[in-house]
């Protein structure tokens, strides 16, 4: 544990910024009910209240507290994005590792299927599938997980193929170790760094993807608080922004707050990923 802490201490400012922001957002998501001054769905005040106590960030078109919805939004959006990314990884990495280890027809079929899925832009594909399944949280998670697993598949297959040519894998094979032993004890530990970095990148893509769909009105459905949907709901307010007084200026910020929260989280995760990749490349030297 100590070498890890030492590396953390030597991390650049950008990585620290990323870690602090991600931790803050994670804590907000976990303790949302304790932090939010008002409930998620309840109408608690007049419509479009200005930014003043007790509604520190105003209220929305229905009179719900914006600050509380931002806090619950962290929980909903980030939670669903994490779940989707984990599922995409489970699918992509297990198929990728299997394809690399087994080779033959399995590799052939899986790789061609991935080629076809990657030939269409994922937003267009997702829209096509969502037309069939309708917009529910479950179909949203499944569709995005399958689409994103194709990228994970490509990466994990390529990484595993590099490892499988190593002598120590040959030794393990000759010792008579089974397929899963080799994947678990030789391939997985050696491909950890690129896969962790990929997890961060995938999370960003999934998170932006869900937010984009919610913004289009096709992702998480109201009344669930979600950052993408909040941008959509408050978008029209921006034309009422007036910078002559502070209170009227806040109208312009209404859609920018949730959009900015999305941007802040993805930038932070990217900064951490850069640092992890840098560490991994340094260790190999």
């Amino acid at each position, binding site marked *: 544990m100590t070498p890890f802490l030492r590396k953390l201490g030597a991390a650049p400012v950008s990585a620290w910024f990323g870690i602090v922001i991600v931790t803050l957002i994670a804590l907000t998501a976990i303790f949302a009910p304790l932090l939010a001054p008002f409930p998620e769905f309840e109408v608690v005040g007049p419509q479009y209240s200005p930014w003043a106590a007790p509604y520190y960030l105003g209220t929305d078109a229905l009179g719900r507290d914006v600050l509380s919805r931002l806090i619950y939004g962290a929980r909903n959006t980030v939670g669903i994005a994490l779940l989707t990314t984990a599922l995409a990884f489970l699918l992509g990495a297990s198929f990728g590792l299997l394809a690399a280890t087994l080779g033959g027809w399995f590799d052939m079929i899986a790789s061609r299927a991935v*080629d*076809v899925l990657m*030939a*269409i*832009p994922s*937003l*267009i*594909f997702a*829209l*096509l*599938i*969502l*037309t*069939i399944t*309708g*917009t529910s949280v479950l179909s949203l998670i499944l569709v995005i997980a399958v689409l994103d697993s194709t990228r994970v598949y490509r990466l994990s297959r390529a990484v595993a193929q590099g490892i499988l040519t190593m002598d120590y894998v040959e030794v393990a094979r000759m010792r008579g170790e089974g397929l899963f032993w080799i994947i678990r004890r030789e391939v997985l530990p050696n491909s950890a760094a690129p896969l962790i970095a990929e997890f961060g990148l995938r999370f*960003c893509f999934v998170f*932006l993807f869900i*937010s*984009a769909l919610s*913004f*289009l*009105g*096709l992702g998480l459905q109201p009344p669930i608080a979600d950052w*993408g949907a909040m*941008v959509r709901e408050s*978008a029209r307010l*921006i*034309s009422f*922004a007036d*910078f002559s007084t502070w209170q009227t200026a806040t109208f*312009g910020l209404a*859609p*920018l707050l949730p*959009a*900015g929260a*999305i*941007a802040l989280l*993805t*930038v932070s995760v*990217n*900064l951490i990923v850069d640092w992890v990749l840098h560490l991994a490349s340094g260790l190999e030297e």
Partner: protein
Amino acid sequence: MSPILKITLSRLAMGIVTLLIVSVLIFSAIELLPGDIATETLGQSATEETIAAFRERFNLNGPVHMRYIEWLVNAVQGDFGVSLSNQRPISELIAQRAGNTFFLAAYAALIAVPIAIVLGMLAALYRNSVFDKTISGATLAAISFPEFFVAYILVLLFSVTFGWFPSLASVDAGTGFVERLYRTFLPALTLTLIVVAHMMRMTRAAIINLLALPYVEMAHLKGMKRWRVIAIHALPNAIAPIINVVALNLAYLVVGVVLVEVVFVYPGLGQLLVDAVSNRDVPIVQAACLIFAATYILLNMAADILSIIANPRLLHPR
């Protein structure tokens, strides 16, 4: 047959096969709809005759493979059938909007590509300077920021605060060319900001890769100016990767346009697609998806073929 022609033809064939597979996927969407689409749309009380007429109208009779071929042949000729919700011919709805979408994408590309290549060259020239660092920061922002965040910041700045450009890009068939350029400036600028960073970064990387090669060192040693070394010796050899990244980003532009169109309420194909998805109007979704997917696949294929052609080693086989 020269090897370059052979490779080009094989890429072309591969592209067409991909397109066909994708069209099968898109066609099968209507087959996968749960329940019978005729009774679903017309309601339980529909008579046998109306259901039969509906099935006839939406091409739901006969074996699947025959209907697929019929659908594809019609689609290639520009006939996508009729809309499920308002029974109007889809080609009518799409023609104008597809034109608008490609106009916006081309507009953004014309701004983005020259800027990206020039800035990428400058970044390669002044490596590790403040300018270079700024560019890598901008790249991070461009891949991390959602499209609508960039769009609303531009609206807040240029439309609400300064009042220079309209926040809604409303155009119709009667809008003149110059007026159209003015009204679609903010959406085009949003798209530009999203793709320019990536293109710039790749141009920089492609040129820097070449700078380590012996002939560039030779050029330096004979006393050439740095910008001349880059413009005359490095750039022509970096053309292949640059063309590739430009085509990839154009493909992305055509898709990224969906979100930007919704933000600026621009009457394009993306907006139509999003509306059709929420109404579950399958024939329109199929038509729009087919156009987007075909553009994406064709641009990717063009990228492949152009970078092959730009590789001089293939022009003069040993």
